[in-house]
């Protein structure tokens, strides 16, 4: 049993190799769409005073591209490819670490005094 099960769910896509790949893509796009809907729902009711930390906090999440960067940097391909990957890791990590820390700093100030 391999991915023919996926094809069973998308029966029109078994003709060419490309359209098989298309079925996987459809699943991924579906995930994308669901996440967009979810993002909209999650954010649309946030009070304005939280907007700045929300912006930096969600910005940190977009640093997830570090995962792709690590795969590129560690694939052990030629020098240029690795260099691109390395730079990508650096910049993505700046985004991640800087974003989370600065957001936390802001919330630290928001804390109610006792």
């Amino acid at each position, binding site marked *: 049993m391999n991915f023919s099960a996926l094809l069973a769910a998308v029966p029109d896509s078994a003709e060419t190799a490309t359209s098989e790949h298309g079925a996987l893509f459809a699943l*991924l796009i579906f995930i994308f769409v669901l996440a967009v809907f979810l*993002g909209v729902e999650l954010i649309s009711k946030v009070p304005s005073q939280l907007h700045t930390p929300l912006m930096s906090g969600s910005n*940190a999440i*977009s640093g997830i591209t570090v995962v792709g960067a690590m795969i590129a940097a560690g694939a052990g391909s030629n020098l240029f490819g690795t260099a*691109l990957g390395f730079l990508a890791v650096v910049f*993505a990590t700046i985004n991640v670490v*800087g974003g989370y*820390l600065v957001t*936390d700093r802001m*919330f630290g100030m928001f804390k109610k005094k006792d």
Partner: protein
Amino acid sequence: MQWIYILAACLFIVGLKMLGSAATARKGNLISAIGMLLAIVATLLDREIISYTWIGGGLLLGGVIGAVIAYRVKMTAMPEMVALLNGSGGLASLLVGWGEYHMHPVVPVFTAVAIYLAVLIGGITTTGSLLAYGKLSEKISGKPTVFANQQIVNGLLVVLALLFGIIFSAHPESNYIIFILAVVLSLVLGLLAVLPIGGADMPVVISLLNSYSGLAAAAAGFVISNNVLIVAGSLVGASGLILTQIMCKAMNRSLTNVLFSGFGSATTAGSGGESATGEVKSLTPEDAYFVLEAARSVVIVPGYGMAVAQAQHVVKELGTLLEENGADVKYAIHPVAGRMPGHMNVLLAEADVDYDQLVEMDSINPLMPSMDVAIVIGANDVVNPAARENEGSPSYGMPVINVDQARTVFILKRSMASGFAGIENPLFFKENSRMIFGDAKKTVQAMVNEFKG
């Protein structure tokens, strides 16, 4: 490993949800950071990875740089900081797309499209964010740069980007040159998109670019078929877009207007319809003290000028003195006061003002007529009654804090100059208004000194 990724995505979702409420926000940020850590660890375990040297080095270097700037940055420089981080993320997505393409140039058309999008959006985000950073930190003039036929040039470049995209996606393996051209084009596009936008509109731009950086990450996710990238990226993409919308709404402007109108450039400034005139009554801080001394209820309305003057600490001191003097003190926060949503909240929080004293616009307005004194500290547009009264005003319809309904209004600013929107403010001429000219920090300090005797 797949399961770790799924768990990480769930943590992002939960974290983002918790970020939406003040009580849980800090924990939410932590949860989302744990999700990120999990995702990174899961990737380290990936069998495709054969060398850890560069990964480790990159993580270390990036981590140190990120940590240093996060701890060094001043709270007042938050907008710039977010712009920089955002540019970082966009650049990373561009590089991931490029790296993947460089290593595997033969890919199906879907993947080629994803690569192209990751690079294009990533590039626009990079230079756009950098320029926004420059404008915000005033390293570059904040004035919108408008030149002839700008829209046409931009339009042509967008068409070109589309064209390149089609050529590239059809045969990615034989179009490395087109690809490089597209990289350059995306960088140029980012600059051109942000050039005509005034410095003060940068928060909206940053929020939009934040959304882009999310979309770029999602595109990178499609490139490597990784669903945690897709989910996290699209969450950020959607939330950035919604935030942008909320901000535009609070300013009563459309996104198109923000992006293309060159709002805040010299041409539109001062076009406030009928000019407000009348007698301006000014006061010294010492005179103001006598009024404040007698006030039972005071509402403080901070604006961008408080950020410029860095007056938050002394404002808090004044607030405390007023309270000790028996007055009820509230801070009224307009959603777009300052240059960043929540800007004032961050500043006042830094100065240790009690969270419970901060009141949102909608809650304070009904109470305004019962307030003895309203102290406007470096705010202008957000207290402009023209938005309520004068249909010809460009800001007509934007909700404002109705300080003019308080018994007495003190307005602390340096001159009669207009605020960001370049609109004259009839508030200054009202019967119950008193201008206290000078730098906000100095003025408030003088009041504090009076109180202290």
